[in-house]
C-alpha cells in the first residue's frame, strides 16, 4: 500500500469519526443521584462513613491473625494459635497430646536403639536373636506414637486455618459492632458524640 492511499484513508477516518462518535454526557457522568447523594449533607455523610470504614479496616488489619506467622508458630508449638485465639481447652489438648505422643515415641525409640546397639555388638547367636527380638516391640511402639503424633500435628495445622478464619471473622464483627454501639469517639479530627 502506497503512502498516498494511507493518507487518503486517514483523512476519511478523521472526517467520518465525529459522525459515529457518541456524545459525552457530562451531566449523566456526574449525576449525584447515581450514588444516592441527593443533597450535599448526604454526600458528606457518605464520605465520613467511608473514612470511618477505612479506619475500622486499619484497626482490623492491625489486629487480625496473619496466616503465615500463625501457621509457622503452630507448626513449631502445636496449639499456639488456639491459645492466642482464647481456645485454651483445645490448645491444651493438642499441646498435651503432642508432648505425650512425641515423648512416648522418643522413650520407645531410645529403648529400641539401646537394644539395637547390643544387637549390633553381639557375636553370640543367642544374643543376636534375643536383642533383635527385644528391639522389635519398642521400635514398633516408637513408630506408632510418632505416626499418631504426626496425625495430631497435621490436624493441629488444619484446625489452625479454621481458628484463624473464625477469629478474623469475629474480630471484624466485634470492631464493626463496637463502632456502631459507641456513642463517643475521639479521633485526630475531633470528638464525636452520637445521640
Amino acid at each position, binding site marked *: 500500500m502506497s503512502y498516498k492511499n494511507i493518507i487518503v484513508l486517514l483523512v476519511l477516518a478523521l472526517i467520518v469519526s465525529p459522525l459515529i462518535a457518541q456524545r459525552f454526557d457530562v451531566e449523566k457522568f456526574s449525576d449525584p443521584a447515581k450514588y444516592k447523594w441527593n443533597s450535599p449533607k448526604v454526600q458528606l455523610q457518605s464520605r465520613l462513613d467511608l473514612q470511618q470504614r477505612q479506619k475500622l479496616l486499619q484497626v482490623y488489619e492491625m489486629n487480625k491473625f496473619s496466616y503465615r506467622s500463625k501457621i509457622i508458630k503452630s507448626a513449631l508449638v502445636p496449639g499456639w494459635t488456639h491459645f492466642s485465639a482464647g481456645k485454651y481447652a483445645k490448645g491444651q489438648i493438642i499441646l498435651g497430646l503432642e508432648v505425650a505422643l512425641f515423648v512416648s515415641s522418643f522413650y520407645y525409640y531410645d529403648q529400641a536403639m539401646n537394644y539395637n546397639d547390643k544387637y549390633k555388638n553381639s557375636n*553370640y*547367636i543367642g544374643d543376636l536373636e534375643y536383642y533383635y527380638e527385644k528391639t522389635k516391640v519398642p521400635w514398633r511402639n516408637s513408630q506408632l506414637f510418632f505416626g499418631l503424633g504426626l496425625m495430631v500435628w497435621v490436624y493441629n495445622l488444619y484446625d489452625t486455618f479454621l481458628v484463624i478464619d473464625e477469629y478474623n471473622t469475629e474480630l471484624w464483627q466485634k470492631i464493626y459492632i463496637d463502632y456502631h454501639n459507641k456513642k463517643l469517639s475521639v479521633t485526630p479530627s475531633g470528638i464525636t458524640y452520637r445521640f
Partner: protein
Amino acid sequence: MKKIILLISLVIFLGSCALDRSNPLDPVANNIEVPNEVIGINISHSSSNEIEITWASQEDANGYYIYRCLSIDGAYVRIDNDQLNSGAFENFTDTQIIAGNWYYYKMSAYRWVGDKRLEGWRSGPKTW
C-alpha cells in the same frame, strides 16, 4: 475422609517397618551358617587340680569357647586359652581351679566371619 485414611495408612506403614538386621554376623541377613552346638561333652575330674573336658570336634568350626561357673545358673566366665583356637581340638584341661570347689561348664563353637567370630549356640551346663 481421604486424608484421614491416608494418615492412618501412614501410621500403620510406619508401625510395620522393622529395623534392619545390620549386624554383619547376623545369619538371617547375611546367609551365614551358624556353628553347630558342641556335642559329646564329657567332663572328668582327673586330679584335685585338673578338670579334663572332651568333646566331638567339628569340621566347620574355627575354635571353641569354654565357660566356667561355680554354680549351675550363675554368671559363666569364658576361659581364655589359645589352645581352643582350632576346630580340630577335642579336649582341654582346666588347671585354674581350686580343689574342693564344684565347677560347671558350658561350651560353644565359633567360626570366623570376616574379622569377627560368630559364636554358635552354647551347650547346657555340664559337670563331672
